[in-house]
């Protein structure tokens, strides 16, 4: 759905993106993570055809962002990190304006508004003014405006910033439900724990480049991530694990993060082999912080 080839973006004083290439598959939720100033927002704005790249190419659903920006705008939803709402308009009017300005005919706008409001859980607030809503509800309204025209791609920049835990949980459920309708989502955030709930892939942006050069699978039910910890350091841990059909994500003398089959017999065999080979095994278990592990594994490898 989204293809980026060697994207370079320059501000007058700095090169924000230095040759980013990535692919985002249809119907997925991809996390865009990285430290502040890494280039996440710039990348999202380029994807939204709001900024022209210096060089490189971005294709959204087969449309080039430079050649066909308005066509892309019509099929895209985008929620910036700092967004505004028309505080003096009711939720109904905010959504109606969003629908009409996205080309939905007047006679169909009412149904589209109802559907969007239902998706974001605002049906009972239709006559409330946007300025009277809580932060979480404002976030929902902003997302409702971005999806009222049922875009194929939805870009969200730090959507969970400032939300309380319940609102974050609701947001996760909302994003999963949108993905289940076939929408492709790219979500930028620096709160890894929250992304874990709904992202299938993660792209780490660091200093204008994709760390590791490609997206990382966040969760793979067939081959989850496991953390191995040794009580006594062994320098040959990596070699051993590679030889035993594991995907080593990160390893040093004391621990290893691997992707391995969920098959219980295979896991038991691996543990047995480790012990037999003299590794002083302190723990072996599925990683509960898969995204965080993957992030630091990737960033750590570069540094």
């Amino acid at each position, binding site marked *: 759905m989204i293809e980026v080839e060697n994207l370079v973006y*320059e*501000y*007058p*004083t*700095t*090169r924000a993106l*230095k040759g980013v290439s990535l692919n985002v598959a249809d119907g997925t939720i991809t996390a865009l993570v990285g430290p502040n100033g890494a280039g996440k927002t710039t990348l999202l704005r380029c994807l*939204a*055809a*709001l900024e*022209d790249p*210096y*060089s490189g190419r971005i294709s959204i659903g087969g449309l080039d962002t430079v050649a066909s*920006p*308005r066509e892309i*705008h*019509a099929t*895209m*939803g*985008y929620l*910036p990190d*700092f*967004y*505004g*709402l*028309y505080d*003096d*308009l009711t939720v109904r*009017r905010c959504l109606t*304006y*969003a629908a*009409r*300005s*996205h*080309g939905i005919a007047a006679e169909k706008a009412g149904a589209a508004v109802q559907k969007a409001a239902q998706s974001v859980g605002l049906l009972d607030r239709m006559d409330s003014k946007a300025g009277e809503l809580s932060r979480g509800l404002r976030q929902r309204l902003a997302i409702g*405006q*971005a999806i009222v*025209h049922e875009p194929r791609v939805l870009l969200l920049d730090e959507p969970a910033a400032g939300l309380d835990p319940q609102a974050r949980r609701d947001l996760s459920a909302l994003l999963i439900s949108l993905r289940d309708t076939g929408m492709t989502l790219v979500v930028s955030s620096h709160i890894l724990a929250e992304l874990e709930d709904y992202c299938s892939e993660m792209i780490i942006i660091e200093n*204008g480049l994709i760390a590791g050069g490609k997206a990382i699978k966040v969760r793979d039910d067939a081959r989850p991530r496991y953390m191995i910890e040794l009580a006594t350091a062994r320098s040959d841990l990596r070699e051993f694990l590679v030889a035993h059909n594991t995907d080593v994500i990160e390893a040093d003398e004391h621990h290893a993060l691997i992707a391995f089959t969920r098959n219980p017999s295979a896991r038991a065999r691996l543990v047995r082999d480790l012990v037999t080979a003299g590794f002083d095994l302190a723990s072996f278990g599925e990683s509960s912080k898969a995204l965080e592990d993957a992030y630091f594994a990737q960033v750590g490898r570069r540094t």
Partner: protein
Amino acid sequence: MNPEFVRNAWLEMTPRRVAMMIGLLALTFFAAALVGGAEWGPSSVASLLYYVIVVIWGSRSAALSVVGEIRDRTWDGQRLSSLGAGTMTWGKLFGSTVYNWFGGLICFAVVLLNVAIHLGPVTALIELIYYLGIGVIAQAAALLASLIAISRGHSHSRFEIFAYQVVGLAAALAVYYVWSAADPVAAMTAHKSSTETIPWWGVACDARAFLLGSLAIFAAWTLLGCYRAMRLELKMRNGPLVWLAFLAFIGVYVAGFDAWLSPNMKGWDPVALRMLLAGTAFAVLTYLMVLLEPKDRVHYRWIEGQVRAGHLAKAFNALQAWMMSYGATLTTGAVLAAWLARDVLVASSGQALVLAGLGFLTRDVSVFVFMQTLPGRRRGDFGALAILFALYVLAPSILAGLHIEDFLFLFFPQVESPTWLGAAVAWMEGLAIAAASIARLALTEREERAAAAA
């Protein structure tokens, strides 16, 4: 109906505001009827209030129509809508000012009623055109100024918003004076032919028709400018053709006034004078646009990259208005210099003056570009203006004070002896600063790439 207009109407035309406008105006007219006397009756007050509500306040509303969206962080959402540039432009222009127009039309109804009763329906119709025209042009000019500022990355402060409003008011003043000079009411009601003519392209044009026609054409260009600026905001490509058409129009329009110059330019034939006028207009537009347009060195590098890659059409389509205006000035100046060679009386001095002018234009444009390559370039335009002030005002004043006026040719075009010295110096200055600008652009690119690689 236009969704942008409807949204603005929702926000602006709330029942409370509508009631307030009606109530206040009704009370004002009532008070004027009671105590205003013959001079300040309801009609006069209504006319004054129309200017206040539609022209003064309306210009501010129009200036805020996009700036306000940026300030309230709703502009990106609008840019991502499916609305076309035309729809967005008129939705903004008339939507953001719908409350002003509501009040203005109440005022105008009072004016119209008085005019229709006392002066007849024809006069009322002419007044309608005038009042609508001055309102739309003032608001469109303010909107255009705000859109140009947005493209430069400036837009938010109260002073800047006031500046856009002032542009609208200046346009309104121009309309007022042109309309007053043309006096169409006199033409239509008293059937008075214009007592004055305007010589244009050797034809004595009726002043009234000429002024009104010019007004209509420039208003159309202003609206087209709004549309084009909005296209850029919506990430649409403009291409160079409309600006080239504008240059052609301005060149032809201004060149027609050669009769005004001929008494002071002995020996210059009409063709040379017309080229001089057109070239001067192009030069003025070059200065104006190089000041107004964003001078983005990333954009300049991109154009250079396209030229190097042989993608000349892409590079041509990305040219900024000041570049095209500069090219038109150079071309016209070169043709003029060649044309002047036909006449031995003016050939040498005329050619030198024209070429010196082109050289100084090159220098001045290069100063603007050069200042953008320096650190702290957000104030680059201010720095460039300060340098030009020093070159054109301060340095010549000092030379005059020291009684060494012979060196004025170093700063602006002078017919000097030997004749070609001024032109040679101008071009040396121009090329030196142009080379410095290009070198700075290349150097900063190399530094940035080295920093990026590090």
